């Protein structure tokens, strides 16, 4: 059986949930190397402008997305309504959580200088952040962290793709990665 076809089917079926390299290996009974090669081959095929989809690595999983070159057509398809985007306050809370996770709501409030409980709850409900544990502080408040939906929402492959900020205590580590988000210009699958 041609595993390339199976892989394509898997990616179609799984949709925006995405599939990890590990699951691909398990499902297709291949080594990681083979799985990567299959992904590369499929990726190469989709590069042709005769195809409307591509493989993206978002939120630590592989998934099919449409091509951004075709965005105008999708706009026509979906009507003129603007995509729902997050408010500045929401973005602020997300950014604070992303760079400080795990973090309590109180610490978020302090950084913003304003109460954030409602926004935190809303973002939790949207699945962009989640509770990742309890703090040892009095009252054992919830600790929050970002989710893979968060990464996907911003088109990021992994946490390492977060925009860099000048964080005094955090050293930036340089890493060359095989799979990157859709915004890195080079097609990473070909580079390797």
């Amino acid at each position, binding site marked *: 059986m041609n595993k390339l076809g199976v892989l394509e089917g898997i990616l179609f079926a799984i949709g*925006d949930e995405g599939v990890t390299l590990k699951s691909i290996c398990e499902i297709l009974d291949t080594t990681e190397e083979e799985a990567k090669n299959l992904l590369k081959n499929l990726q190469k095929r989709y590069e042709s402008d005769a195809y409307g989809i591509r493989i993206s690595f978002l939120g630590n999983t592989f998934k099919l997305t449409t091509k951004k070159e075709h965005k105008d057509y*999708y706009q026509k398809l979906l009507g003129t309504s603007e995509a729902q*985007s997050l408010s*500045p306050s929401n973005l602020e809370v*997300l950014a604070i959580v992303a760079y400080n996770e795990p973090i309590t709501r109180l610490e978020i409030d302090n950084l913003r*200088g304003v109460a954030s409980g409602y926004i935190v709850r809303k973002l939790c409900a949207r699945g962009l952040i989640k509770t990742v544990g309890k703090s040892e502080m009095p009252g054992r408040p919830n600790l929050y962290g970002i989710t893979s939906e968060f990464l996907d929402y911003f*088109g990021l492959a992994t946490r390492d793709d977060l925009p860099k900020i000048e964080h005094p205590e955090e050293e930036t580590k340089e890493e060359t990665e095989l799979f990157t988000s859709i*915004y890195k210009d080079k097609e990473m699958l070909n580079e390797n």
Partner: protein
Amino acid sequence: MDNFTLTINDFSGPLDLLLHLIKESKMDIYSLKIEEITKQYIDYIDSMKKLNIDIASEYLVMASSLVHIKSKMLVNEKDNEEEPEDEGIQTEEELKRRLLEYEEYKKVCDDFKDLESKRQEVHTKIPESLYEYREDVKLNTDTTLDDLVKAFEEFLKRKKFEKPLDTKITHRELSITKRTGEIRNILKTRKRVDFFELFEVINKPYVVVTFLSILEMTKNNEINIKQSKNFDKITIEMK
């Protein structure tokens, strides 16, 4: 600050408002003039009050912090070992540090905004329902098709008795005491008997009375009722 194009609701908090005022007056956080910024901040809050816009308490806390810092600078007190309160910002350094920190997140929000809109240029689909491929949950009993057939046969047998029979209606009183005596006799001669064997005649009063008799005898500790597993034969024996 002559025309207020931005209302307080456009800011996400007092730090946001402060940053905006600092930018407006082309100041630098490092060389922040507390006196000036405090005046602007309070003027702004006042102007909002004039417009009857509700002001969140956080903004007022910040205003009081600013005034507090300003007054301390005027008195030029040499840190009178003042008890640090945990509410609000106490010193100029702290204010600057908080502003710088906040500005950092504010800046990165623009990056996130870009990332968000770029991501919205491509589309994904929700996962397929793979329900039809799902393996059914296996029951961990060794039930076979034969059991099913048997169960259905039993059902049909019982069903037969439900058919109304052509009959003359005569009423015969059936007492539990009498039936109990009958069952006792059966058990005396046969020791062990199948539960369903006791229901020789199938009609409602007979079944009910027989069943009640069996229950009665069980209660009186006369008989044992045994069944080795679900839907198996039920046997009744004398104690």
